[in-house]
């Protein structure tokens, strides 16, 4: 199992993967500071 969430950094890529896998996208807006 992964030791961290495997976040994508590109929404378009996530939407494309969502369409293929039928899983919804979890979009997290965050402030790295």
């Amino acid at each position: 199992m992964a030791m961290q969430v495997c976040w994508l950094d590109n929404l378009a890529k996530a939407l494309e993967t969502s369409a293929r896998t039928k899983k919804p996208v979890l979009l997290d807006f965050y402030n790295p500071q």
Partner: protein
Amino acid sequence: MGAVTYPDKAVIDFVDYNFIPVQVQVTDTALMQKYNVSWTPTILVLDADGKEHYRSVGFLAPGEFIAAMQVGKGRYYLDTEQFPEARAMFEEVISQSPEANAVPEAIFFPGGHPVQAHPRPKPLREVYDTLTAKYPASDWSQTGRAL
């Protein structure tokens, strides 16, 4: 979230199994504006067309995060008319995390959905009675008054 919730093993496994996770920094003003986001953390559940089905604003500890995102996935299923999957997801929240803040919403939506999920009046009344008895202070109890 990055220091406490996202490193949690249960959260990692839950997100990996249920979602396609993507993180966007607040410097992406185009996306911030598109989704009307002005606060972090803000977490959205989207379908493959980018349409929003659920929103959470503010910090969530691991258990609350999982319960909230189970509701979020339930809302996604409900909106996309996958009713058995929606019901299963809401029931999972209620059984796995009975003390979570997301539970009243998980109770409300299966019974409260007015179109196809549960159109009969008796279950709707039961939902309202359950919400007002167990969670009288919840916003979902007040929303359930319409039932």
